């Protein structure tokens, strides 16, 4: 295995799950999320040499992932804002438990948020530090804090509404 491949393997192992969550939160479709993940890491592989010595490589990967998700526009409409696609339901139907239902509901609620809100909140839930989220999204930290506060409130309300149904 070449040095580049080894570095890429480590980067993939450290970041792929979180990036997948971001893509899944954005699209609400596991197949599309996998496609977007693949597209993101293709760009990472392609430009790895340029960023090998940068300390915040995860910020850079997130930035690519966010832009890749945003470019994915046309098909996004099919996913709908309030419905989970059969894909995601099917994938989780294997093991129907209370936990799975809760995760399903959570994704359903995230799908009801605006695009930028979906991206920001998945990063918040994956415990990405605020300065890094600000750097990725290009929003000032002060403004981001206000946004996050609102999104948290909105998502919690949506979730509780769903649970009451």
């Amino acid at each position, binding site marked *: 295995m070449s040095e580049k491949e080894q570095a890429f393997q480590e980067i993939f192992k450290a970041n792929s799950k979180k990036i997948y969550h971001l893509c899944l939160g954005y699209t609400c479709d596991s197949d599309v999320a*996998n496609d977007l993940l693949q597209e993101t890491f293709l760009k990472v592989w392609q430009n790895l040499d340029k960023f090998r010595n940068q300390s915040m490589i995860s910020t850079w990967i997130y930035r690519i992932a966010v832009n890749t998700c945003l470019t994915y526009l046309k098909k996004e409409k099919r996913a709908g804002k309030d419905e989970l696609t059969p894909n995601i339901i099917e994938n989780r139907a294997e093991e129907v438990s209370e936990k799975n239902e809760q995760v399903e509901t959570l994704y359903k609620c995230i799908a009801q948020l605006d695009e930028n809100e979906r991206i920001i909140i998945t990063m918040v839930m994956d415990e990405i530090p605020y300065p890094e989220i600000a750097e990725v999204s290009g929003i000032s930290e002060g403004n981001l804090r206000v946004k996050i506060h609102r999104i948290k409130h909105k998502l919690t309300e949506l979730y509780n509404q769903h649970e009451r149904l």
Partner: protein
Amino acid sequence: MKDFDSLVGIWNAQKTTPKLDYKEIITQYKTSRNKLSIKITRELLAMAIAMAIIAYLALKVEFSLWTSQLGLLIIFSCGVYFITIQMINLKRIAHSNTLFDKPQDHIRFIKKFRAQRHTQHTTNYKIYSATLTLGTALYFIELAYHLGTVYVLLAGVITLFWFSIYYFYFLKKYVATENEKFEEMIADLERLDLQFRDIEE
């Protein structure tokens, strides 16, 4: 009733994992890079053959009218234009690094790129078709002397018929579909741009 911390707990407990391996990505990269090279080579080869035929005709055949050479020169220029545009587009796609920009800048780049593509597909393509028709028409003038008026008229009518069908039906239909697609895409991009704008709240 759940609070946000409970939602984070649910989020962290999820078992969703990507169905992707890092090796697949490297393989995919190598495959797509090969595909792109094949596409470029094929287009270049096809255009090189066409241009070689035109150059051969222009240099070897002794034309008695200057209109034939001018016609061939125009057709040749159209070929150069076509291949240059293809190369610029492919290069731009392959070397686009705006994915590392801030989301707003990336969205702006996509909007600009779509608008340029739209101009290329509509206005520029109309000019390209008209120029190609002019070149062909000029070339046909001398053919009329050698092949006889009937053959040239027939060739002219067929060419004109094809260009009319193309211009009034296919191009119009294509432009309408493109417009609809672009308008929808631009509206989406503008909505996103607005969401990411760093406004004072």
